């Protein structure tokens, strides 16, 4: 896998847009997870991930270690997500907008209501975590990454990731049991 990523990065650095498209497909979920962990808003996370890939393409020449593409990209996305949060875009968005989360698809009214309540509880529990723990948790449960891979993406050790995940689960369990 890594050699494939490195090869794609080398090709993309030579100007191969198709190779960069492969990298987008490979890392899109991770980018979304990182942005969502900062913003807690799916649409804004999508915007940040999208912008992150464009920035990544524009700055690809600066990447000296192709094997670190994932962590390099996640850092760009994380910075963009912080910028977006600082700009207060979330507060400015019209509340009348219907978000994906607020309208669960399918099912009857009862199941939709249950799903919505569950979603709200989970959202609140996630918001109670610190950003680093939330990032690790979202990468684990959305992207399904191992602690080692999460550590590589976040520039930390797998032991530190495990510690954060354990702590995050304790907090989540406590919040969700309330």
């Amino acid at each position, binding site marked *: 896998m890594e050699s494939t990523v490195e090869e794609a990065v080398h090709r993309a650095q030579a100007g191969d847009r198709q190779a960069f498209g492969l990298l*987008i497909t490979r890392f899109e979920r991770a980018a*979304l997870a990182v942005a*969502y962990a900062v913003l807690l808003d799916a649409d804004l996370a999508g915007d940040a991930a999208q912008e992150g890939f*464009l920035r990544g393409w524009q700055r690809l020449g*600066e990447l000296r270690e192709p094997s670190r593409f994932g962590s390099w990209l996640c850092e760009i996305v994380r910075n963009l997500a912080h910028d977006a949060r600082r700009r207060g875009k979330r507060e400015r968005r019209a509340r009348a907008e219907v978000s994906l989360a607020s309208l669960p698809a399918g099912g009857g009214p009862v199941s939709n209501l249950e799903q919505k309540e569950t979603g709200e509880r*989970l959202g609140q529990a996630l918001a109670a975590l610190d950003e680093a723990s939330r990032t690790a*948790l979202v990468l684990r449960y959305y992207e399904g990454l191992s602690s080692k891979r999460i550590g590589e993406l976040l520039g930390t050790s797998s032991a530190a990731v495990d510690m954060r995940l354990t702590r995050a689960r304790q907090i989540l369990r406590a919040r969700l049991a309330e």
Partner: protein
Amino acid sequence: MNDDDLGPWESQLRQHLSRHLDGQLGRSLKRFEAEPPAARHNEPPERSRPPAPRVTLRTVLAGVAALAAAVMLLALLVSDGEEQAEAPRPQVDQRADIDRIENDQPTQQDQHPRPDVPRDPAAEATITADLPPGGPDAALDANESSGASNALANLGQPLIIERLLRSRTLDEGTVLIDGRTPARKLRRQWYERVEWYDRARGARMERIVPREEVVFVRIPTL
């Protein structure tokens, strides 16, 4: 229950994240594919650009405006009133093109506050004077399709100083694709604002485009 699982909440957390984020998948690739080839990675890196473009733009435009005012004052002092009245103003029609672009936004997008970027009529007139007869749209279309020999190239390689993307996703419920495959119908609407800044002239140009697409996300069935 040990520390490595969340019990019954684990699968719900996965579903929660998937429900929120899966609708965003594919956007980055589409956006990248829509990006004109001009935005290549071999362009000057972002960090070499002005660190705070908005502030820099304000400063530069204020400087240009002050300079224009000084020139006008000087012209008033050294020429008679008749020459002033006969001074050509060829850019009136072209300005209308820019106004048209800015006023053509759909009302649903108007709820998004637009950044307060200072305007310099003299600078806008300067940039519109070099645009093709079709106005800014034609210049931008030419840029995306014809490479170096386009209108923007004539402007001295303007710098893209800002790109704001605003989006929303509407869930239009469950539909059946080909009569039997259940899928969620998501309508994505986004709003692109691209602004070019010609450092050499202190001129700016912007384009705002509302876009929309419909995406079907297959719902897994047992």
